């Protein structure tokens, strides 16, 4: 691994981007790295664009990821993947939940939701699109879709699967440990 690994997690307010970044932060700390995380809360509790940065390595100074520097872009919604795509290195990978949430600008007709976002992403960067929302519904736990996406992205962050499982066990509420482990395994299997 090169000195510092830059991960971005983006989504829509309420999708669990903050919790997901904390799981990754704990994992990197447990592995002995210096870690910095940074989150951007907008004004709204729900529905706005949310971005979090996770950086880990020998010694990390800046808590944010700069444009063109991200190794992995994890997106919980298609449009948000496209919005932050320019943060990704040329050989970076985007792991995207194949989900559409219309922003209010689209609902009111002021803007249009772009067609074939996954196609656009694929042309620009290596793209792994996963139907995480569908898979989480199949598990009977629609809210765990973020862990499904994380599972799909896990192969690109240089940690062993067992370590991921261990940190999920330690981070999520005790009652939801089993379902979150299942969600992670589902995502992990999807990204082969």
């Amino acid at each position, binding site marked *: 691994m090169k000195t510092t690994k830059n991960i971005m997690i983006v989504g*829509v*307010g309420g999708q669990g981007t903050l919790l997901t970044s*904390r799981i990754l*932060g*704990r994992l990197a*700390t447990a592995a002995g790295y*210096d*870690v*910095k*995380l*940074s*989150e*951007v*809360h*907008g*004004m*709204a*509790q*729900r*529905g*706005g*664009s949310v971005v979090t940065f996770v950086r880990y390595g020998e010694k*990390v*100074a*800046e*808590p*944010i990821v*700069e*444009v*063109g520097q991200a190794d992995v872009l994890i997106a919980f919604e298609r*449009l*948000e993947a*496209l*919005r932050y*795509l*320019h*943060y990704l290195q040329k050989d970076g990978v985007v792991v995207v939940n194949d989900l559409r*949430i*219309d*922003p*209010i*600008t*689209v*609902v*009111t*007709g*002021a*803007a*249009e*939701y*772009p067609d074939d976002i996954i196609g*656009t992403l694929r042309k*620009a960067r290596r793209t792994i699109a996963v139907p995480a929302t569908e898979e989480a519904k199949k598990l009977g736990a*629609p809210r765990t879709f973020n862990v499904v996406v994380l599972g799909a992205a896990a192969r690109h962050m240089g940690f062993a699967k067992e370590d991921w499982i261990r940190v999920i066990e330690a981070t999520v509420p005790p009652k939801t440990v089993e379902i979150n482990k299942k969600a992670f395994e589902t995502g992990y299997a999807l990204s082969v």
Partner: protein
Amino acid sequence: MSETKILLGNEAIARGAYEAGVKVSSAYPGTPSTEVSETLAKYSEVYAEWAPNEKVATEVALGASVAGVRSMCAMKHVGVNVAADPLYTAAYTGVRGGMVLVAADDPGMYSSQNEQDTRMIARAAMLPVIEPSDSAEAKEFMKFAYDFSEKYDTPVILRTTTRLSHSQGPVKLEPRQERPDIPYEKDIAKYVMMPGNAIKRHVVVEERLKRMAEDANTLPINRVEYGDLSVGFITSGIAYQYVKEAMPNASVLKLGLLNPLPRKLIEGFASKVEKLYIFEELEPVIEEQVKSWGITKAVGKELFTRQGEYSANLLRERVLGEKISADAPAKVPARPPILCPGCPHRSVFTALKRLKLHATGDIGCYTLGAVAPLGVIETTVCMGSGISMLHGMEKAKGKDYIRNWVAVIGDSTFMHTGINSLMNMAYNQSTATVVILDNSITAMTGHQDHPATGKTLKGETVPAIDPAAICRAMNIKNVCVVNSLDQAELQEALKRETAREELSVIIARSPCALLKGVKFPNKCVTVQDACRKCGACLQPGCPALTKKADGTIQIDEVMCNGCGLCMQLCRFGAIKMKKAGE
């Protein structure tokens, strides 16, 4: 044994206060400062409370300090303005137990109405300001700040910024140092700031400032890291990290104390490096002083901006002349902040819009009533301002002019400073209509309690203060409480009260849709055949509603909270309520 944990900057600040033996904390929530108080409240050794506003919080902390214990108050930068009255004089009285005011600035204005720099206020108030640059330092500097406060007999401002408050990094946890209370001692000359005493204290303040400035030259939190001498940076806070990221070999003078500045240390550093950059976010607080000492080679705002956040890329671009290339961002529709599905404010704004009423607004979730598609809030300045501004409009333009205006304010904001503004309206015979949007919580910062919720920061149940009773106690005759989610009741009340030539208060009440314990048992669904594609249900801008390709409406079942607003707007009975899960 010490344990290392990943902590938010704010959590680390709270940990620092805890370890320093703080016993009393008072604060008003505001992004990005809120988590400091929420974290500190979890320690049973600390009494922590939400105050109705920052002035009160500062006075509580000062009282605790005078009584001989270490105390804290916390607020966002705009809150420091509210606190300014006691703060400037607290600089005169000094402290007894150490006192720290945590102020969180917001470069980039992620959640604020302006971009002010607390270091300017610290200078004006002649108070020391200390600035950490990551979570680990945040904790250490808090402990340092308490020792410093007691050593120099002064309140200390610990300044943080959004990027620091909301970043996480490893912090080594250490045990709390329990401190015996300093016995109270009557000292009228020090604590009663009537002119005769204050004149003498002003001298003390100036002498203290000189002493601190001298000592600052050898203070451990002001640190020189010599490297490549051809280029040097004077920097502080999060900006230091950007220097280390972009130019790790450059020489750096990292300032931990930002007021007063260490002149000898700075002059020494400046003489050793060839090129000198002052890299500080927001205002040129270091730069102007450094230049005033005749260090003319210093380069600051000529190169770097006074606006927004800095970054390592900014340095690379401006100092190294590197062109930062990245693909142009794709053209992507904006995803602006919106009111949540089921938010009771959306219903009130819809009623205002349908009645073609204008509104002076305030700070809170309901500020979002200014954005499309609602667009009914026409002013937002600071906490409490909506009510006083409408009063000003009436006095300027007359009673008739404001008949189609209302002031809107939230329940927490009403308790903060709205109460004073309403008192002014009652006293000075306003005839306007004030709508208190009572969702029973401080919602925007993430659900903090306040005097009208019946819960304290520590989670204890207490008698709630009733806003309606307060209004009546002001001799306001027309006070009514309506259900925010009932359009007919709302519109009727708005029509009735705005027509009146008397001051009225409408309390539109319905809990925040995200509040724990608020259950929406129903979901809204469209009856496709009955939909006439008129779009009336889309007007309030609920994110759960989307238009299908054929023009009919679809309601997202996961998002919908079943508030029924869209159903009340549909004239064709095309939206029905069903039990969730059916």
